């Protein structure tokens, strides 16, 4: 599980090269900034809420392939979800990327393409990269005013 091709799967390379929903969002009603001072990754998540649902979502920023792909995949995974469902996806995603390497990756349908990030668990220093956008999403959902800093 520690092979590089497990980390840099085709889906990830694709989302790194062509990130989806990678722009600012006109009419966004919530946003948050995230920053990982360790590697300088920065991300801004924009939300346009439709009641309690994430009506639209976009992100901007700069970072490594893992953080960018994770942000891109996240926007696809949570668009249209309620706040609670989005947070539940984050919880399952976080559990997947921090699970011990000898635990098989669950074939969790609800995670969809996010499963391609499971390889991160073999690269502990990269977990922060994969979770930065998600922490930022959480802050945006709570409309936290301060930038998220992953420690």
């Amino acid at each position, binding site marked *: 599980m520690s092979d590089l091709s497990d980390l840099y799967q085709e889906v990830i390379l694709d989302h790194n090269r062509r990130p989806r929903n990678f722009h600012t969002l006109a009419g966004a009603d919530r946003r948050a900034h995230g920053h990982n001072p360790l590697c300088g990754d920065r991300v801004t998540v924009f939300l346009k809420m439709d009641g309690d649902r994430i009506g639209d979502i976009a992100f901007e920023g700069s970072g490594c392939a893992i953080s960018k792909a994770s942000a891109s995949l996240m926007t696809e995974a949570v668009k249209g979800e309620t706040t609670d469902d989005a947070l539940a996806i984050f919880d399952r995603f976080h559990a997947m990327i921090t699970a011990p390497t000898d635990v098989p990756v669950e074939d969790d349908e609800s995670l969809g393409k996010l499963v391609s990030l499971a390889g991160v668990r073999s690269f502990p*220093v990269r977990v922060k990269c994969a979770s930065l956008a998600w922490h930022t999403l959480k802050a945006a959902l709570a409309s936290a005013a301060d930038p998220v800093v992953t420690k």
Partner: protein
Amino acid sequence: MSLSASTAPYDVSAIRAEFPALDQRVHGRPLVYLDNAATTQKPRAVIDALQHYYTADNANIHHGVHALSERATAAHEAAREAVRAFIHAASVREIVFTRNATESINLVARAWGTANLRPGDEVLITAMEHHSNIVPWQLVCAQTGAVLKVAPIDDRGELVIEAFDALLGPRTKMVAIVHVSNALGTVNPVARLVARARQAGATVLIDGSQAVHHLPVDVQALGADFYAFTGHKLYGPTGIGVLYGREAALEAMPPFLGGGDMIRTVTFEGSTWNDLPYKFEAGTPHIAGAVGLHAAIDYVRGVGVEAIGAHEAVLLARAQDALAAIDGVRIIGTAREKAGVVSFVMDGVHPHDIGTIVDREGVAIRTGHHCAQPVMDRFGIPATARASFALYNTIEDVDALVAAVGRVRELMG
């Protein structure tokens, strides 16, 4: 016969055999250690010196009348003499042991700065400083009302000398400059800068953390008031650093930390200070660290700093040429005078990904801002990948780095 053996001014494979940590595999590949600007590996001589000290001589120093304390004191002071000789200071009174370069700089910023800086006075640094030669000055400026000025660097990563000269003025009280930049590898023309700064009446501190193991340093010829460096980048242990201070400068300065060993007399009405350098060494020092640093200095002098510098220059030139030839790679820091470090970025690939990928090939480099965020801002990049060389690196190490970076290009497209 390997190429490295034929180009090196000394026998690199014999040297490598003295560094046990180099002899290991990482992710199934032989370790290629190229993160020497962060910290160097330690020769057997240093490891043995630490072990011997704790096995045979361990005691507290200065006060004891028993045999072990005398031996430990002698070993500690012999280390001070070794440091003095290494940097050609006039006297051991000018050699203060600290924890690291960061503490050395903080000592000056705090003790000298609070005694000498007034509102409106200026502290002049450069745009290529390590955070540890920025933040202590920011703190003391905030405390005293002094103003921090920054001399710019150009696109090669060289200090803009005319701008530096222009920033030196009657209000400039302190000039604090890095000797060799850890992020860019630039070697500053310190002798010239010190001369100009002293002409202008400023006190001068040089951060030599990345210099003393790459090029010969003579603090008297240099003429700086203070020279700071750190033991662990010089093949010594962590936790031991050095502040050289001209005797007159140290004499004029109030103490930094108060406590045991730095005093002569203590009453509740007041205390008097010990002689130099002890006035600046409060509390039980890192005795073993000093002993280990002594062994490291002996080791480096045995190989020869000039020979080490010459060997590393060959590695650096080859690395820069080969990396620059890889599609989309750009070298950050192309100063005419460089030592030990090659920082680079790759189009479309974040340095963090470069670091992870080459690590899987057994190649250890550093990625990030290298504690020099203003340098990254100057070049408009979030981070770089950085390979840095030591006396034990080989041409084969450079080739392994280049192959691993080539693999990054393949993998990331």
